[in-house]
């Protein structure tokens, strides 16, 4: 247990000591999106019925920021220690794959929650945001952060250079988050794009998260919850397997 807790402490300190970049900066970015999009899109019908666009946007932005920061936390931590070589400090001790997995994922989730809370608090200064189902907010925040933290671990294990990681982030994570319905309800899309959106697992994260606030969603909450739990378990299993097998760590 001490080994796991030490690694967890290190991973938390790693982002906490530079909280200005790891928490404050993404909150500011989200605020800018909020101000600009709320202004440009105020008259659009991209939101749910009976929900103002700025209200609608806040949970989406909070979730998007959480997903991106959870991913960034695990992937950047891993790639940095791989490239500097100090990864051996955690490869030499008798830590298990569970220790690595939980330490990295919990730390990334902590950062994601801090960012999400920051976005929410900044958001409520701009617009009123109701809270319909707190359990759904918490469940999707945790599952979404955990999912992307695991994906970040996979990317960090796979990538050998920073640009490979950047490619993973720019060509997979960014498009999937941006096209997950952060800025619009998929009901406002043509049917083809609605169908495409439903293939994106991130869509269910954002839709379920939003349900927690407004009590309404594009798809049934049971569906988004099932997809999210299933994706989380699958990705976690893959991550645990990769760590256990020493993939690109213990060549």
């Amino acid at each position, binding site marked *: 247990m001490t080994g796991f807790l030490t690694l967890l402490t290190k991973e938390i300190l790693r982002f906490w000591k530079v909280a200005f970049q790891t928490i404050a900066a993404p909150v500011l970015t989200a605020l800018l999106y909020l101000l600009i999009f709320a202004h440009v899109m105020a008259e659009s019908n991209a939101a749910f019925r009976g929900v103002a666009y700025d209200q609608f946007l806040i949970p989406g932005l909070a979730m998007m920021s959480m997903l991106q920061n959870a991913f960034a936390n695990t992937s950047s931590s891993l790639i940095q220690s791989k490239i500097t070589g100090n990864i051996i400090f*955690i490869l030499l001790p008798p830590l298990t794959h569970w220790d690595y997995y939980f330490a990295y994922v919990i730390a990334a989730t902590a950062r994601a929650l801090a960012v999400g809370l920051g976005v929410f608090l900044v958001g409520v200064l701009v617009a009123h945001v109701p809270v319909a189902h707190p359990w759904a907010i918490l469940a999707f925040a945790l599952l979404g952060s955990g999912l992307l933290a695991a994906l970040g671990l996979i990317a960090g294990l796979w990538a050998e250079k920073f640009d490979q990681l950047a490619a993973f982030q720019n060509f997979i994570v960014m498009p999937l988050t941006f096209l997950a319905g952060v800025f619009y309800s998929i009901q406002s899309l043509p049917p083809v794009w609605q169908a495409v959106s439903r293939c994106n697992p991130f869509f269910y994260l954002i839709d379920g998260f939003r349900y927690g606030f407004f009590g309404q969603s594009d798809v049934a909450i049971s569906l988004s919850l099932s997809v999210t739990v299933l994706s989380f378990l699958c990705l976690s299993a893959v991550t645990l397997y990769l760590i256990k097998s020493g993939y690109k760590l213990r060549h």
Partner: protein
Amino acid sequence: MTAAIEALGVEKRYGSLAALDGVSLEVREGEFFALLGPNGAGKTTLISALAGLTRADHGTLKVMGHDVVTDYRAARRALGIVPQEIVFDPFFSVVETLRFQAGYFGLPRTRALDAWIDELLANLALTDKADANMRQLSGGMKRRVLVAQALVHKPPVIVLDEPTAGVDVELRQTLWQFVRRLNAEGRTILLTTHYLEEAQQLCTRIAMLKQGRVVALDTTQHLLTAFSERVLRVEVAATLPAPVAREARKSEGHWHTFALHDTTEVESRLRWLREAGVTPSAIEVSEPDLEDVFVKLMHR
């Protein structure tokens, strides 16, 4: 008694290159053992496989009887590795680095641990750098922190992969004094080094690797006597009488070299010279030297 380190038929390939080509050796508990060999011989690869940083393709490796794959937790707890490359986490100070490393090995922060860390720092001449950030240290200091990191969980088996590269002479002495003490206290030491005189002074047994194979494995003493000979060199101003000149292995100016089977032969040789009417103005007996053994083995 279980061996401290046991390698059995260890093979590791990188593409077509056999970095380890069936290495078997045993390091006994409490030994001070040297692993020697030219660059690229496979020393670091063997150590990495032992530490679980890489996986052997074939063969087994054990630390204190624990298989490094199937019983990796016990094996890693028993092992302290000082890596060849200098690495550090710029995020931490020296003392934080050590506390975290102890934590990874399952040691909570206790007064006893803090005392041990202080002792490590003192023995490695790092006390005044305890709170310095790792970035602020010189290369030699960083290497000594790596040594401290390897020892922080008090492993019974300590592996040092070229620990004195880039460390100045005085600190090298400090380091060896400390490592000798750890060995005297019962810890097993496996050392790779480029400074053969270090291995000769410190180690009781030696394995020599060449292209992934063990080419010699014996006590330092045996290797020295088996592979290198002693010679007697004498300076004589006058020309040597013919029978004496015939016996000389080599003559350069006034210096003449005679082979010796062992050091006890010096006396009889000198008597033989005196009886032949030769009076040396200077004599020299060359001691066998690991360098000779090394060069001979590597060129075979």
